[in-house]
């Protein structure tokens, strides 16, 4: 049973670490974009487009962690082996 407890712990800690770094990255990107718009409001359209692409790129890191966490929780490939070993 410990296996499943550790799975949940791993998913939780992984998601936390993943969103930690992603949050810092996105915050920095938005900070620079806001500074840019404040200096030159005319360029806001272009800055917005580029910022959104960048944010999507950074965000995909957190999304990868999320997908891995979901695989660990709901579609774990080792579940069957562990259950077989437990039933012996």
């Amino acid at each position, binding site marked *: 049973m410990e296996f499943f407890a550790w799975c949940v712990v791993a998913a939780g800690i992984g998601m936390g670490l993943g969103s930690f770094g992603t949050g810092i990255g996105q915050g920095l990107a938005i900070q620079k974009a806001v500074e840019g718009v404040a200096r030159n409001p005319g360029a806001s359209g272009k800055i917005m487009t580029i910022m959104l692409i960048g944010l*999507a790129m950074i965000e995909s890191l957190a999304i990868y962690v999320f*997908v891995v966490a979901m695989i660990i929780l709901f579609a774990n490939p080792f579940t069957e082996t562990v259950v077989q070993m437990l039933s012996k």
Partner: protein
Amino acid sequence: MTHPFIFFEWLEHQLHLHIGNHVTYTWLVMALLIMVALLVKRNIKTVPTGLQNFLEPVVDSIENMIEETMGHKGKAYFPLIATIAFFILVSNLIALIPGFFPPTANLNTNAAMALTVFAMTHIVGLKEHGIGYFKHFCGPVIWLAPLIVPIEIVGHLARPLSLTLRLFGNMYGHEIVLMIFFGLVPFIVPLPMMLMGVLVAFIQTFVFMLLAMIYIAGSLEEAH
């Protein structure tokens, strides 16, 4: 863990069919889009009224965005990109109606779209540059090619993966967060998350469309 009651799943169960939610809801979105398109097409006027009035600026803004990002050569890829954009937007927004499942919250739908874009970029590149398209993969100096080619190949293969997983993760994650909030407090509390769902739906459509445009524009331009 999606919505506990999904209308088409129930219908499939009644009819003893096994198709899968994402397929049936893809059909629904397709039917919706085709119906709206036919309705607008039936009476196009120079001075737009009603539905045409609503759809014309949308199509116009997508066209302008393509012109800005891809140049005048990109006009030829307007049908592909606009179709993908409309499909993703409608299927993202459908998630907000109770009993409906967004087809984009399934890996298969997204992989189909991402692979279409991936194949399209290389077909466009080969059509545009012929055999010289492989210069795109070789980097600026020819003796650096053995180093650059593997990196480029991995980079190109990562594109459909990231396109697929980004959309899937966003939509599926939103669905799960919503269900958890519903489980905790089924009144008022999930409302802000639903508002964020509208935002996410629009942003993810925009991002997918923009990345598809950038990938195609990348294979349109000359190798340096």
